[in-house]
């Protein structure tokens, strides 16, 4: 069996409770988005899944193995793409990938074959023989993704994989992620760019203040009132029609049209029918924000346990950015 199962996991650094109570599971063949605001504990959670941090409490199973008790078994099966982009600065892209492959026990020949394959996959061929320190952030991000895939793992943990990527690279990342899921791999992708996740994730884990949202809370948030954007060829008529229909007090009119809060999809269908019925030329009628964002904002509004205040003591996760490129190494 594959997949990720997390139950009641907690981890503190001194008196900073980065993760308080995380429970979720991801089945093989699925892409789960790990969603949460900055400092929600996403990276800490991923470090625990990647066998780098031991949880204080709770259990983790990756493809049926415990990262604390059997780290080796887990490491064989996971590919981890960290948020901090480290690379051996003086090695070439090809050497760096081949070295990583050899760290997973591949022979020299198999490792260089695999490196060549991955260079094509992440589209770094023109840079394959340049030292990694010359890579831009987006290129490093792709190298990092290639390294996570180097031993063809069953479970992929991607921490902010899309940050720094240009639109074309984002599109190919999306495609790659969906294809890997199609091959039966389990993917957990963290991001706070929700539109990005919306397109690749088929399930979501919401994390705020170190606590994952319970399934019923997510379902409730999904059903809760949300904003719908309505556009019309004739904004004045739209405004009048909304006021006549009793939305005058709650609708927000701006130069793009109107934003109307509606409590359910049924209400939305009804309003649309009404507007069309009274002759408003509606050109667009859609949720103002994506599903993930809606749930995320709603859960945040519902007041999760307050995020622990930041502290300078032990910060194993950081949004402080990557190490400066080209650091001096003797």
């Amino acid at each position, binding site marked *: 069996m594959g997949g990720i199962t997390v139950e009641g996991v907690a981890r503190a650094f001194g008196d900073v409770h980065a993760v308080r109570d995380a429970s979720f599971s991801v089945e093989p063949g699925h892409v789960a988005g790990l969603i949460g605001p900055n400092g929600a504990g996403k990276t800490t959670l991923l470090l625990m899944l990647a066998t780098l941090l031991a949880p204080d409490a709770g259990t983790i199973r990756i493809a049926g193995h415990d990262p604390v008790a059997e780290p080796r078994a887990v490491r064989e099966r996971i590919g981890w793409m960290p948020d901090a982009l480290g690379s051996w600065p003086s090695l070439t892209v090809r050497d760096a990938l081949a070295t990583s492959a*050899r760290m997973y026990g591949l022979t020299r020949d198999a490792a260089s074959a695999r490196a060549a394959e991955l260079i094509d996959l992440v589209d770094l061929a023109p840079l394959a023989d340049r030292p990694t320190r010359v890579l831009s952030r987006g290129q490093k991000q792709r190298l990092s993704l290639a390294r996570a895939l180097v031993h063809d793992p069953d479970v992929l943990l991607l921490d902010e994989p899309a940050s720094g990527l240009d639109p074309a690279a984002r599109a190919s990342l999306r495609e790659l992620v969906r294809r890997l899921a199609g091959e039966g791999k389990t993917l957990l992708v963290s991001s706070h760019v929700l539109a990005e996740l919306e397109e690749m994730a088929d399930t979501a884990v919401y994390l705020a203040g170190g606590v994952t949202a319970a399934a019923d809370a997510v379902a409730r948030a999904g059903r809760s009132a949300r904003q719908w954007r309505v556009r019309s060829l004739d904004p004045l008529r739209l405004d009048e029609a909304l006021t006549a229909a009793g939305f005058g007090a709650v609708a927000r009119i701006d130069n793009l049209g109107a934003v109307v809060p509606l409590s359910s999809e049924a209400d939305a269908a009804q309003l649309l029918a009404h507007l069309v019925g009274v002759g408003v030329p509606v050109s667009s009628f859609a949720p103002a924000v994506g599903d993930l964002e809606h749930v995320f904002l709603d859960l945040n509004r519902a007041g999760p346990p307050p995020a622990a205040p930041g502290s300078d003591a032990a910060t*194993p996760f950081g949004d402080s950015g990557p*190490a400066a490129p080209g650091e001096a190494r003797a």
Partner: protein
Amino acid sequence: MSGFLGGMWLIVTLDLKQRVRGVAWYVLLGVFVLLVTIVTALLVLATNAWDDGGGGVFSTIVFFVLLLGTLVSPALSGNAINGERDAGTLATTQVTLISTAQLVVGKWVAAWLTALTFLAASLPFLVFAVALGQVSAATIAISVLVLALELGIIAAIGVGLSGLLTRPLFSVTVTYLVVAALSVGTLIGFGLGGAAIQTTVRQTYIGVDWRELEEEGNPPVGERPPCLPPEVREYPTPRLDLVWGFLAANPYVVVADAAPGSFDEFGSPRDLFGWIAVGVRSAQHAPDTDAVIDECADWRPSGEWVSPDTQTPREIYERSVPSWFVGLAVHALLGAGALAWAWSRTRVPAKRLPAGSRVA
């Protein structure tokens, strides 16, 4: 990766590959060779080495290489682990099948091999000293071997500290301080310790009463000369025998003492190593707190001087414990301890993180 060694060697080659592609290492090596060249040239001119067989030149060059080696080695090893952590490459290695032990040992071997290149670069100069003549092959082999071990121990301390301390600058500095403590601190400890623990020596002197002798210098009665009443003198003396362990832990002493002693026909050492070894070993012996100098008993009618049973340096050397063994063992423990501690701190999944550090 087949077994422990395969994975460890991968880390070693990765580390070395990165070093040889940097410029810093070549610059250091160049400066090093230049300095050794200058020192050798000056030594040859200063000591008249063409005539005395090169023993002095050899031992001084070995010391100079040790000095430079201990100055360079911390810089090469002191950021091995925390530097990787800063660069963000430690965690990506630790999620692979490379174990923490392979990582730490690999880093150490790489730092050691790098330091050994400095020793290798100085070998031509040692060979030159040997070519001058009288240095025995055993002395050369053992000096170079012990020098290599000392460099390995400093590399181990540097790598160990780089795993213990979070900031590379701090761990490099602390490694330098450890080297300074071993090289200079042990001398201070030895001197101050010996001076602080003093004991009183009671020396009794019995002289010949020359005025009672006849004009030819014969005793008036029988064979024995008339003696003066014993004079007793008391003075404090440092108990170096209680603190010689400090000196044994000095890397220079280790190198000097490990070389097989070579002595001339009067029992005096031939090279710098020998003198240091004799000095260190004579410190092992407790001072004679109740010394009797009986000149009267040693008197001979012929007037010949019978030396009281003082020892030649060679005799002192031979009846003492070889201190290099103790010193090297202390150093090895220090290095192994540092590596083991670094290993336990770097192990993942991490349970406790030192303040201010991060896993990735």
